[in-house]
């Protein structure tokens, strides 16, 4: 990057000089090709990239799961060595939590939240790109360990002191500690960005209690991330210092108490569970009303119970530690709090059923995935209540009963919801629907495979099969169900292959013209992302709609007649915006990816040689410098008319509404 002559001129920007050529560095201008993706700051492209990268890791995490299942297919399996098994189950958990479900939720959050609140983009577009690239590099960095001496082998929960250099001498746990640290920065950047976006950039009239439930749940999740991530950051720093600089935070010989790690990890780890599940709760709260053709039953109760789960989620972490030696008072207290977090969760389930009750249910693929979340998550929730009975948990913990429980929550709950979201918003993102009949095959095979895989784990768990054991004996009597489970895991694989076929076939069909282009509102949607064309135009909204209701778009389509009976008064596709405006948009930027690439270098240096960290640090500082001195816009964008309109205030045709509504906008 050459430093141009005009450098001092940036100082004049504030004074009103809008010359687009000011600034130390030029901004990229590419609107097509790979550069259009790598340097983009568009929340939609970033959302899609989060999704693509997360699905890649889902594939890899799935391969890890299949390796685990292959090993446990028979007693005394010989597919993996104990060492490989320990590394693979560690990375299966770490991958699925940090590289799959969190970024998939981030994909939806990035893509959908600005559309649901009527915004042109998120509050800090370049930071949004930074979050994505940091996440991408975190995933690569974590998995580099496979090529540099073996993966982490301490479990995703990484209990000290087993993760110290004495007991885990390879570099694997360093990659774990530093990789999660990097991934944490990505989530933190994203969280702050989305919190500011939701608080400040809602369309006029959209009070907090008119906000779509998906946006609400994402908002709660970002708050959870904001407060939970610092805790694991601290824990990981302690671990890294122990490993890299011989500190004694978890050195028992020097008086450390290893339970410190467990408390820190689970104070993060339990809110993390809600970070993983609440986005899906948000998704089905959107899809169930749309496909039941009824409003969400108890909007405010669902929102408040979501917030309550987020809040109560901070008071239950020690239920992961019922056998760790907390003492009876602590165990009893956390046992009780854990029981009562079931209340707001149960309320949600029953409200969703009440939403469908009396409706006119359309069994589209997103609807089927949503109903499967309601029923499968319930099973996971109820086994969760069984664990909250602390004495019972002393028999259940660290057995496959727990594995069954959290897979019903995270697969049956979170993933099913995310699949519902993919099928539901696919036309909004790409302009066409995924094939419904392939989608149904995907759904049914997945549902059967899922229950075959995780259902029997309840049984072997109660029979006493312990988790994280690389083998079991023929004398243990676990063979039958383990064989069923392994077969089930491969059924899931078949379901996912159907999904992949669906994606590729419909994409090719769309390009060939056999898969139809969808209009703005293909599902008879309720929220304002359906009031703009499919696929979303680059600038999202031609004009920012004024919001007067929950489910605002739906109320534009259906209104009561003289008898008070609701009638369809408008076709969603006709009243939708045309997407034909061409407002000014933020320019792409080189710096997010450059800045992000510095972090794995710094981390690698901490493991191998501090000089590499030095190079990384220089790159980091250089990228920050470039970032700060980047001109506000690119010279060729052709929008030198800042005085006339800013990025967000194209007025709706023949309407002064935005001025008016701005006064009521920011309040709750």
């Amino acid at each position: 990057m050459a430093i141009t002559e005009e450098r001092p001129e940036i100082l004049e920007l504030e004074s009103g000089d809008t010359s687009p050529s000011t600034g130390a560095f030029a901004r990229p201008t590419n609107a097509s090709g790979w550069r259009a993706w790598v340097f983009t700051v568009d929340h939609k492209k970033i959302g899609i990239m989060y999704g693509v990268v997360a699905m890649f890791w889902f594939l890899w995490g799935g391969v890890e799961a299949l390796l685990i299942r292959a090993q446990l297919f028979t007693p005394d399996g010989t597919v993996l060595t104990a060492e490989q098994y320990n590394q693979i189950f560690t990375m299966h958990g770490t991958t699925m939590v940090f590289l799959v479900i969190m970024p998939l939720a981030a994909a939806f959050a990035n893509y959908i939240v600005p559309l649901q609140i009527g915004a042109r983009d998120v509050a800090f577009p370049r930071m949004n790109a930074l979050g994505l690239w940091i996440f991408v590099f975190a995933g690569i960095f974590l998995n580099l360990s496979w090529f540099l001496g073996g993966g982490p082998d301490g479990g995703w929960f990484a209990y000290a002191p087993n993760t110290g250099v004495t007991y885990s001498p390879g570099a694997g746990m360093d990659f774990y500690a530093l990789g999660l640290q990097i991934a944490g920065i990505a989530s933190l950047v994203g969280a702050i960005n989305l919190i500011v976006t939701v608080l400040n950039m809602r369309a006029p009239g959209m009070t907090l209690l008119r906000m779509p439930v998906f946006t609400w749940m994402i908002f709660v999740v970002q708050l959870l991330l904001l407060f939970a991530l610092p805790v694991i950051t601290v824990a990981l720093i302690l671990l890294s210092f122990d490993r890299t600089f011989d500190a004694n935070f978890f050195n028992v010989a020097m008086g450390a108490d290893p339970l410190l790690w467990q408390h820190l990890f689970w104070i993060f780890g339990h809110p993390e569970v809600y970070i993983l599940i609440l986005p899906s709760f948000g998704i089905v709260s959107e899809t169930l009303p749309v496909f039941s053709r009824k409003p969400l039953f108890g909007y405010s109760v669902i929102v408040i119970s979501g917030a309550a789960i987020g809040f109560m989620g901070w008071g239950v972490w020690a239920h992961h530690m019922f056998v760790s030696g907390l003492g009876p008072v602590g165990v009893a207290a956390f046992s009780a709090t854990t029981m009562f977090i079931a209340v707001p969760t149960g309320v949600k389930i029953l409200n969703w059923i009440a939403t469908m009750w009396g409706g006119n249910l359309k069994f589209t693929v997103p609807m089927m995935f949503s109903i499967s979340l309601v029923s499968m998550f319930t099973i996971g929730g109820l086994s969760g209540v069984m664990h909250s009975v602390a004495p019972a948990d002393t028999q259940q913990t660290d057995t496959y009963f727990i594995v069954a429980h959290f897979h019903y929550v995270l697969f049956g709950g979170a993933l099913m919801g995310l699949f519902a979201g993919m099928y539901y918003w696919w036309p909004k993102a790409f302009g066409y629907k995924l094939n419904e009949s392939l989608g149904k095959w995907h759904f049914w095979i997945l549902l059967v495979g899922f229950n075959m895989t995780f259902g029997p784990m309840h049984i072997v768990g109660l029979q006493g099969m312990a988790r994280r054991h690389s083998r079991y004996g023929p004398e243990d009597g676990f063979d039958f169900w383990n064989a069923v489970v392994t077969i089930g895991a491969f059924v899931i694989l078949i379901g996912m292959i159907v999904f992949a076929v669906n994606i590729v076939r419909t994409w090719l069909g769309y390009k060939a013209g056999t898969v139809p282009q969808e209009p703005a509102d293909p599902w008879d949607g309720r929220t304002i992302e359906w009031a703009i064309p499919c696929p979303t135009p680059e600038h999202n909204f031609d004009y920012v709609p004024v919001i007067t209701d929950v489910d605002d778009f739906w109320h534009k389509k259906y209104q009561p007649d003289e008898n008070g009976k609701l009638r369809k008064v408008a076709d969603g596709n006709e009243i939708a915006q045309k997407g034909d405006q061409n407002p000014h948009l933020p320019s792409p930027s080189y710096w997010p990816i450059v800045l992000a690439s510095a972090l794995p270098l710094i981390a690698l240096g901490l493991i191998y040689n501090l000089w590499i960290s030095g190079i990384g640090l220089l790159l980091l500082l250089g990228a920050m410098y470039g970032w700060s001195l980047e001109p506000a816009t690119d010279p060729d964008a052709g929008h030198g008319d800042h005085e006339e309109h800013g990025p967000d205030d194209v007025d709706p045709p023949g309407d002064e509404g935005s001025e008016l509504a701005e006064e009521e906008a920011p309040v709750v």
Partner: protein
Amino acid sequence: MSARIHTSTEGESREMHKHQSVMRRLLRLVPLLFGTTLIASCATGRIDPTDPVGENAKQIDGIMRLSGYMATAVGIFVAVAVVIVIVKFRERPGDDPNELPKQIHGNRKAELTWTLIPVFMLVFLAIVTIPTVFDLSGKSDGRTIKVEGQQWWWQFSYDVDQDGTDDIVTANEIVIPVGEEVNLDIRSNDVIHSFWIPQLNGKKDAVPGRVHHWRISSPVPGIFYGECTEFCGLSHANMQMRAVVLTDEDYDEWVREQLTPATIPEAAAAKSGYDLFGRHCISCHVINGVYESAADGNANLTSGYAPNLTHLMTRTSFAGAIFELYEEDGSVNIADLKEWIRNAPGQKPARPENRQGMISFAETLSDNELDDLVTYLMTLGGPPPLMPS
């Protein structure tokens, strides 16, 4: 009367019969399905929390069943509701697309009801749970046994005369008298482990730097199986244990034998094995009375401990209780024992180069030397008071 009924329903009954036979065929499948499921699921092995024996395990089992029944009831309720919704409220061909279902935005009363009912259920569950937590955490007036976990085996120490020093140190098999609530002081010498003999009680973690209290008891003599359930590194899957519950007389006899130190053998092969032991094994292993140089905390292992072998042959298993020490006919399992000494890391994953687990003697000891060593080990007490059935 019955004849009349017969005749009057004959016409329908054929129709019914056809219907029934399909139903019956389907119904016949149900017990078949259940049967295979039950047989398969009841084929439980040695570790079996579903068959509690000890008082604590029974208490836990009762409260677990209660919570399980409650969860099942709620689960069935939700499942039925979902099925009704799917069947009753699905879109049918011919439904007027412009006709909206009744738009209900909520119902405070209904929502309050399904908030409060779970609250009451959970309050009930909490009332049952909390006293049980305290019940299970107390100490009994029985004897106390020290339990120490280390990679990847368990050590049990008994202070018989209560003078503050351990008089019996054994490995992998905790021996207790029948009917007594034995107190355990659970510790760890390296990473976190978890002590679990499910038929006697739930789990308790062994955390380095801490002493955790727990109790076990059994009303009947027998051998009960357990394993480490907190991930403790490479060979976590191979860290099992057994509880051997003896009648009072057997227990006293066992204690007497354990308190007797070993002596130097006289037979030539055993003497040779004894000498080999002195050359190769005593930097880690202790045999009371003859080789006591491997002090606790020896530098060859990160945990500082290797199993005390004084009365090896009174145990039923070795190497983290993953190998049987005796064949079913009561003879010593010489083959596995010899293979273990020859190449332990090949038999059970370990990292001897990182001082985790026993080293290999494949390069050090000849076949004859291994035979002598096994012959010597076989002189160390035995047979066990109770054999696995």
